[in-house]
């Protein structure tokens, strides 16, 4: 209670009683609280397993509830210029490690960028928790790890203190490693180790950057709330590249895409959806919010690097998507193409392009989540993930096919579906700075779209195959969680303006912190 009593700056007084703002704390920690509850539950009988699963779904649902609360309280404020920038209604700051030479505090906050990814993370985890109902293997482990990973992911997004940020960043590695070791098929151990190695390297780079900033900035603090950061000498450039390298590793852009793609390919069902939809988004968030947000001038001076990397990533990802025969790897490559678009937006270095990145991350998470979940359902029904071994599934699974096609269209950036607003803002925002790069990237995205449509043709259309005669369509549970994601894809596509000001404020804060 003492903890709560210290909060004085942000209060809501609608009932006459002063309440501290604890939305972000609740959003971050509620999942791990449920994880602890699940950990203590027995898991011997089917009833007990079901109970654990309900705890998992409820925990993810509770986190989703607080996420929606956090976002929707900011949307009305966005028009007034206070929503979507740090220091508003959502801020929570309590002194924590103040006795050390460099102080650290429990500082949570969320800007437009964070809120865009928070929506994705919370929705995808909730849908994944629903999808995990069909799992019968290592139920407790899956539930606990999923909820812990959700806490870590949300924590990364709202941490405004380096210590917290790194704590959550490294916390995320543990459940990913454990889950892949437990559920990975084929090369589970190898891919888990690879990913853990990559993540540890990125965590190390971030730690170096944090130390450098904390010692050189002069504030003697690990607080991340003061931007832009000014460091003497080449400190800014070094810190910028440390954070950028860590982010690029997490985003899995070419040529650093190997570990995450293998992780997605080797994971099963629910996990691949989370890994593909959430983990790269955290990297993108770090790149834009931390690297660009802390050092807007430095990042602007390296915009050509990002443009070239965007071109390489998008063209590479598009070409690889055309040739790959593995359904999940194909989706992974499409996700890489999306990350290339993020890089183009960073290269554009305008508030329009950064706003586009937020829209794109929102769309990307939903679309990739749907595609991965559908891919796992296909695998579950046919015992195959090789595209060349599939065909004619629309006969047996029309809803599954229709949802795949819709997600494909959204990934292609078709207007009135979630992907288009991001494409529109990124291209219009980046074109003035990098005309040729924008043009090539646009062509590269066509490759990825073509690969997805071609895959839809090969997997779902054509004559019926006897082999898949007993494959069934989506059941009520599957329709529910896929429907939630698809519904959001359509909703965001039709009314993207709902988030526009929120994201724009966030973009303004990142690029023009003093002004915003």
């Amino acid at each position: 209670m003492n903890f709560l009593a210290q909060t004085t700056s942000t209060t809501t007084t609608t009932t006459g009683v002063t309440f501290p703002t604890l939305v972000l704390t609740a959003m971050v920690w509620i999942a791990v609280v449920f994880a602890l509850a699940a950990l203590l539950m027995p898991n011997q009988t089917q009833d007990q397993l079901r109970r654990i699963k309900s705890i998992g779904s409820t925990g993810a649902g509770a986190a989703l509830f607080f996420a929606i609360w956090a976002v929707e309280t900011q949307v009305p404020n966005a028009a007034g210029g206070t929503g979507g920038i740090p220091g508003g209604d959502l801020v929570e700051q309590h002194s924590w490690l103040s006795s050390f030479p460099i102080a650290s505090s429990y500082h949570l906050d969320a800007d437009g960028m964070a809120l865009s990814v928070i929506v994705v993370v919370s929705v995808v985890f909730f849908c994944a928790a629903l999808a995990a109902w069909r799992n019968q293997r290592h139920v407790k482990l899956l539930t606990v790890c999923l909820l812990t990973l959700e806490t870590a992911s949300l924590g990364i997004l709202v941490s405004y203190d380096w210590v917290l940020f790194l704590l959550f960043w490294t916390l995320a590695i543990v459940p990913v490693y454990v889950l892949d070791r437990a559920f990975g098929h084929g090369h589970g151990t190898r891919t888990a180790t690879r990913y853990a190695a990559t993540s540890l390297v990125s965590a190390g780079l971030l730690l170096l950057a944090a130390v450098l900033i904390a010692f050189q900035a002069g504030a003697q603090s690990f607080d991340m709330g003061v931007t832009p950061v000014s460091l003497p000498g080449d400190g800014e450039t070094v810190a910028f590249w440390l954070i950028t390298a860590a982010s690029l590793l997490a985003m899995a852009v070419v040529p650093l895409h190997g570990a995450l793609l293998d992780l997605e390919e080797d994971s099963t069902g629910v996990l691949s959806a989370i890994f593909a939809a959430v983990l790269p988004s955290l990297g993108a968030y770090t790149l834009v919010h931390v690297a660009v947000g802390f050092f807007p001038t430095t990042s602007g001076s390296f915009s050509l690097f990002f443009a070239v990397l965007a071109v390489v990533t998008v063209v590479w990802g598009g070409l690889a998507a055309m040739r790959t025969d593995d359904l999940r790897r194909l989706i992974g490559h499409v996700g890489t193409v999306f990350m290339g678009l993020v890089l183009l937006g960073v290269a554009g270095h305008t508030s329009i392009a950064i706003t586009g990145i937020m829209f794109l991350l929102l769309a990307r998470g939903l679309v990739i989540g749907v595609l991965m979940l559908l891919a796992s359902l296909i695998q579950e029904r046919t015992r195959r993930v090789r595209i060349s071994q599939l065909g004619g599934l629309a006969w047996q699974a029309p809803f599954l096919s229709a949802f795949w096609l819709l997600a494909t269209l959204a990934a292609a950036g078709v207007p009135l579906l979630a992907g288009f607003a991001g494409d529109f803002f990124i291209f219009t925002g980046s074109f003035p700075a990098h005309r040729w790069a924008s043009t090539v990237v646009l062509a590269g995205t066509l490759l990825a779209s073509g690969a997805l449509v071609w895959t839809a043709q090969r997997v779902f259309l054509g004559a019926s195959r006897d082999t898949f005669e007993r494959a069934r369509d989506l059941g009520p549970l599957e329709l529910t969680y896929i429907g939630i994601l698809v519904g959001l894809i359509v909703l965001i596509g039709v009314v993207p303006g709902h988030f526009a000001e929120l994201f724009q404020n966030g973009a303004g804060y990142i690029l023009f912190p003093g002004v915003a």
Partner: protein
Amino acid sequence: MGSFAWVILLLPVAGCGASFVTETPRRAAHVCMTFLGMSLIVALIVLGYRLAHETTSITPDISTLNYLSLTPGPSETATFPSTFQVAVGVRVDNLSASFMVLISFLFLVVQGLGTAMLQHDAGYRRFFWASSLLATLMLGLVLSPGLFQVWLTLGAISATTLVLALHYWHRRETTAPARRAFSVLLGADASLLLGLAYIIDKMGPYLGLRSQPAGGALDIFDFRLLNPAWQAAAKGTVANGSYKSLVILTVLLVVAALVHAAQAPFTGWLTGLREAPLPVLGAITMSMLAGVIVLARIYTLLLVTPGVLSFLAVIGAVGAVWLSAACFVSRDIYRVALLSASAQLALAITAMGAGGYSAGLLITVVSAPLSLLLLVTAGSLARAYRTRDIGEMGGAWRRMRHTSLSLGLWALAAAGLDLVGYDVVSSIFLNRFPNMREEVGSTTRYIVVQGGQMAGWVRDLVAVLAIAAVVLTALYAVRLLVTICRGTPAVRRGFIVEKLTEAAPPLRTLQRWCAAATVGAVVVGLPGIAAIGHGKGRVPALTFSHWIYYGASHQTLPVEWWAFAAAAAALVVGVAGGAAVSRAELTRRVARLGLRLRIPTLAATGPAGVRWAFAFGARAGNALAGEVVAFDHELVEPLYDSAGEGIEVAAWSLERVRVRRLGIGLGVTLAVILLLVGASVLAAGGHFPVHTT
């Protein structure tokens, strides 16, 4: 009136939504058609209102809603408009008022065709909701107040085209072409998106400084802002805008329009879809009007880039000849119908490129129901004869009198009585003759549209090509009519001539509707062409060219006897030639000749250069993709493997040296860390005496 027009847009999409909750597919069809019919009625009311208020109808009624709005950063106003806002809405002007009636009507006929031809089809319900959605999007395109909505609707039209084209999703011969069609259309939409980005790049700050037009939300891509911006850029008064940039912009937008209109060399996506059911082909063919509508909307941009406008005329004329030739040598009646629709639009584009804005749109209005008439007739014939090969048809006049009359009407109209030939030729020669100019004070003002700025030899070339296309059109139209109507059908296994009967009543009704619409469209255009004399003698009454025009003043197409003579000669030559080559032996010879000349292949895939480029691109892309995957396998993955293995080796080494003491040590360390964390938390809460002094 602008707000009222929202109803036209929302009714078909409401029908589309309602069709999902109906009990039976049949009911779904009825719901979709009812809503589309209501949309047509409202569109007619809007058109009637504007006709009744013709004197004040120059100003469009616009109603817009803010769709996306951003404010660029303080240092970005040198690059972007100060308010980066895009809107969706409706722009009711004479063009949209006319075309929304046309589109609602055409899609209603297409849905009627669906009820007649898709009964008991598994995709019955899907066809109706998808076609209703396509109708909505086409209406949205026509009513677009700005380029953003044009992009929005064109992209959605591409996606809906894919859904429709996948009607027979289980057949390989339809799925692969549907995918290809979607990819091509997606490329066109990407071109348009680049165009939007280019506008921001070149004219962003200029657009941001313009005063907000009255009526609705500000849209930086609003035509009311763009039209003066283009003219200002052409005059060099826009900071970044130059003639070169305008040309690049025009090319980007024109490419998108030409692809959507299935113009040469981008016709392949349309002809590839010919295995789809006829109602689907009807819907997709009608969606090709989108290309012409886009051209009409960006006409002011075309006017300030006369080079591109002339190029458009040449492209249109070459395409018209090419597609007409392909029609002439094709034996598949569906293919003829599709290519014919594309060829008619090519003539419309030629006229627009030559400066005949009103003439081009008039051709579009006339040719749309005409193309649908041919499709409906072709469907009736193919169903009756159980073949699509016109060489195996014959004797229709005796056994299918009504259908033959419809085909005859189409053939005569296409051969020249629809005056399309005259419209094109007169547009090309518009400002060549002195009686088309008038002196207003000290300046010379063209009384006709002034877009035609082709050099002399280009104009002559385009004229020759256009006349050739008109002649070829007459040839294949008459050939088709005579081949099908006279003689007897070819003897085939399983086909009993005696069982050949007239098309079902619903199809006959649709033929009548299309025929009536065609005649109506020709009649609407007729007084405009036959404006009696010039100057004082000009008929000031309502005419198409008096009704739809660009700029601030009415233009009237004059009577040009040269053009009449050329068109009439083309008609005569075409009819005579068509009748001559319609003999069965000659039909086969012509088809063989066409095959030898590879005209059908050309029409489907483009000239050798384009084919080679596509094939080369595909092979190169495939090879490159192979290298990319190989690189991943051979270099990237081993790198990660080695990193992973390094950690594994370290872990393994640690395990080797693991002793009981190490385990205890690790446990103690963990416990100490936990204690420290706990102490820190307590210290933060003031429960632990750790203070700095």
